[in-house]
């Protein structure tokens, strides 16, 4: 991120600008206003493309209307679009991405792609973003609610290597049942609750995930015939 981003506007129209760089406020606001215009157009374009693909309704639901939960196809496409926006404007870090999601939620997205705020740590757009990195054919092997359950796990939230590992597992299984996936998430949380996984190598981390996955296979009465990952 090379400039500031407007994450909200007060009733007066004054922008609230966040930036990870020191710069005079005036120039920061000017740059942020430019970015704001681009984001508005890009998010609009994203929603239009989702409508064109029959993933979103034409009409924006009225305020307060109950919104459909959405499925993996919708949120995967949303995440792919959001990823492109983030990359285009250099929102690479988790912190800067958080600001981007806040800006899109507060200022640019319609209720069609927004979902209830559940705190900055459990951000819907961040979940879409993570999902968008996984090939759709694999992502579809578990339901959106399971993905949310997975991303919600405290042991997974800050660990993006978990997504790669899961991708490997999904490549080996045509379909993963809801119960098994939830059992796995619970086991994994229990196993690594007291650990700081950031000090573990990829191999060490995957070994822990494999262990939790294998224990749910045994519990489900399966016979493990393949490794959970390549």
């Amino acid at each position, binding site marked *: 991120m090379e400039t500031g981003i407007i*994450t909200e506007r*007060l*009733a*007066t129209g*004054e922008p*609230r600008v*966040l*930036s*990870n*760089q*020191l710069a005079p*406020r005036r120039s920061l606001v000017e740059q942020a206003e430019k970015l704001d215009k681009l984001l508005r157009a890009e998010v609009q374009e994203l929603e239009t493309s989702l409508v064109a693909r029959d993933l979103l309704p034409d009409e924006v639901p009225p305020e307060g209307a109950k919104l459909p939960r959405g499925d993996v196809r919708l949120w995967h496409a949303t995440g792919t679009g959001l990823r492109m926006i983030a990359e285009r404007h250099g929102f690479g870090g988790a*912190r800067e991405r*958080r*600001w981007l999601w*806040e800006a899109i939620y507060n200022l640019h997205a319609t209720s069609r792609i927004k979902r209830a705020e559940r*705190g*900055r*740590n459990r951000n819907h757009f961040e979940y879409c973003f993570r999902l968008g990195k996984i090939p759709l054919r694999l992502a579809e092997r578990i339901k959106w609610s399971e993905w949310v359950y997975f991303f919600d796990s405290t042991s997974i939230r800050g660990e993006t290597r978990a997504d790669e590992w899961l991708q490997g597992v999904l490549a080996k299984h045509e379909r993963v049942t809801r119960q098994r996936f939830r059992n796995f998430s619970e086991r994994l949380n229990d196993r*690594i609750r*007291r*650990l*700081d*996984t*950031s*000090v*573990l190598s990829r191999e*060490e981390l995957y070994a822990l995930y494999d262990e939790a996955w294998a224990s749910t296979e045994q519990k489900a009465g399966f016979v493990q015939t393949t490794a959970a990952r390549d």
Partner: protein
Amino acid sequence: MTDDATPVTSPDVNWGAFLDQAVREYNTDPALGLAHGLQKEAIQNSHGAKDRQSKVQWSCRFRLLDSQKGTLLSITDEGTYGLTGTSTKGVKDRPVSFPASERFARFESMFDSGGDEGPGLFGRGKLIFNACSDERLIFYDSLTRDGLYRFGKRHIKGRVCEQYLNAFEGEAARTRLREELGGALQPLTTPGTRITIVRPVKEVLDAIRSGEFLTSIGDTWWEIIQKEDAEITVSGLSGPVTHACVPENFGGLPKVSRNKWRVYRTDNATIEVGDLRYKVKHLHVLIPPQGHKLREEQLGVFVHRRGMQVGRLLVAGVPEEVADRLFGYIQLDEAFEDVLSASENLTHYGFSHTKRPEFRALRKWVQEHFNGFMDSIGLGRRTDQNARARESAEEANAALNGILKDLGVPSLGTGRETRRDFSVSIENLEFAHNNNLVKTGDTLEGFLFRVANHTSGQKDVMVEVTTNREDGTVIETILPKVLLRLQSGQSKPTAPLRVQFAAGAYRSGEKVTCAAIVRGLDGQVLARRSFFVYVDTTPPLPGPDLAEIELTEYEFPKEDSKRVNFGQSILGLTYLLHNRTPLRMSVRVRISTFWAEEGMELDEVFHQDIVLGPYGSIDCRVEEVKVTEERYGEVRRGKIKLRCAATGLETTGLWEKGRRLAEKTTVFYLEMDPSYGLFEDTALVPMGPGEPRSKASATAGTKSWKLDINSNHPAFIDADPDDEARVEYIFEESARQAAFVLLTRDQGAVLLKILGLDPRTEIDEMDPESILRNLAYPFTDRILAKYYG
């Protein structure tokens, strides 16, 4: 003589201690320090004596000057009555209270205020002049309209307060002035009063030199400066005379919204309290444009009395996005000012009797208008249950804190942890058997203890190392007492030590402690550190705490506050990490900050891989934690956690790689003040209906306390819908838990003192029934009586 002719005396007053107490009050929140208090009290006295008939315009001048007695600070007013009336020294039948016209007598006595005209209420402010003198010495001279000139002094020396038996008058007064001050000051020629502080304290000198003194006058007295064009000046030993003015960042106090200022103003409103009607002359709330800077002490809505800014009125639900720039004031008619003054605290910086009907009526009225204002500009407050409870808790906490302070309860909740003055660590300890098993005849050698001084001065300490049995008996002295002289921040090792586990002295199968004890020269234990060995027997597994982290040093920007503003830093942050196992411990130490509300990491300020020997310790120091807008801007204001964590980097027989071995969390507050009360946080927690109504618990790793209110308890459910009932409910629970917190925090002596019980009472030896009946219940009752009284 009493009525029954028994000889009596008036008790001795320890004036020095009394003055110390006054200083503490001015240095305690919500007061803003001695220098701020000096200008407030001095102008309050002076403006209260303003002579409205005088042809001379009222003015007040603060002036530093050199003299044979050192630097003087003279505070001279004009356009006042001067100290009128007769000198009553030596008069036996003095009245209970001197009439307002007896200004000289009132000034020379204590607890008589300036009368009923100015903002002075208690007569206590006069003490501040002596408190601001390094010698605790002041002179005063006064000229009245009828030409009477007087000169007097007040000098507090230890337990004694010296004043002339009879103040000098006329020519004698002029002569005495010259004798005392050697021509540095000339006798007054226009009616008024001058107070001269001999050798002002550094805080006051610094404030005058930096301009802070002048700024605080503007903040406090802008109303009379604006309305009366009042002239208040400050001059240093050199440089120009500076005039106090309405703070520039008030932007001219616009009356309507314009130029991105959002303004609410209402005039001449009536508030009914019972059968009485009072008038609010003005309520004026202003929100400047974003980016507009206000100082911390300017934020909030203040009550004014007689032209003086008194204290902040707690207004609930100030939206975070404007909390750093919302300010305002309330001006009342004189009748309302007078009745409300009964709710003020002793230093006139806040309110401690917030249950009085007039205060509550005003607060309710202001809150309603404030809510309307916020709604009108799209910043209306959230109305969910938790938000309401938070606001009620804020109000209840403010009331509780005021009452506890009045009762003399020390502030526990400022949250500054008690830093250890000394620490001891172990170095170079190696076991032969990869655990803490020793065999009879084995020798442990080469290890040592290191003692560190974390205080700000040089200290002499004695260190002794012994081996001990489980019952505490000493087996042998490994290192006889040695004296270590430690400079501030310095650490020194003992000599390398040696223990031989000889048969006879050390018994097979026993656990032996090797302990270093650090004592002051008075024998008081200052720190200790120990490790264990097991003789000829397999050691049990260590407890769950395999490592420990201590926060040993840090410096927040402001003494006694955990507030940190943008652009400020926490300096010299030092953690001491201890390995509490007999194994080598390879760890990654990370020190990071987290946004408490969101649980998100904001900044990593330290990251290092470290190896600790068996029972070894090491310092991890961060010179500066900068709180910048780039790093913390998204938080705006709120609680930040500062966490030091150690994670194992190798799997051993006692832990696996990745295990969080130890953690230490403390907090600071970004752009906001902590509650400064007993409870740093109050939250609604859904417990069972039959579970306790509330629970107080210490916040891990800090000195703060948290109060959980059971939101499912039928009594809370009953009170919740009504704002007032909810505040009272939370207050009563807070009061009930206050006794528990004090007892848990070893503050039983405070309870004994407040309740007038024998201070020698051993609370530890009291049975539970007595603690409840004689301490907890009466203490709670005392708080509630003050709240509802």
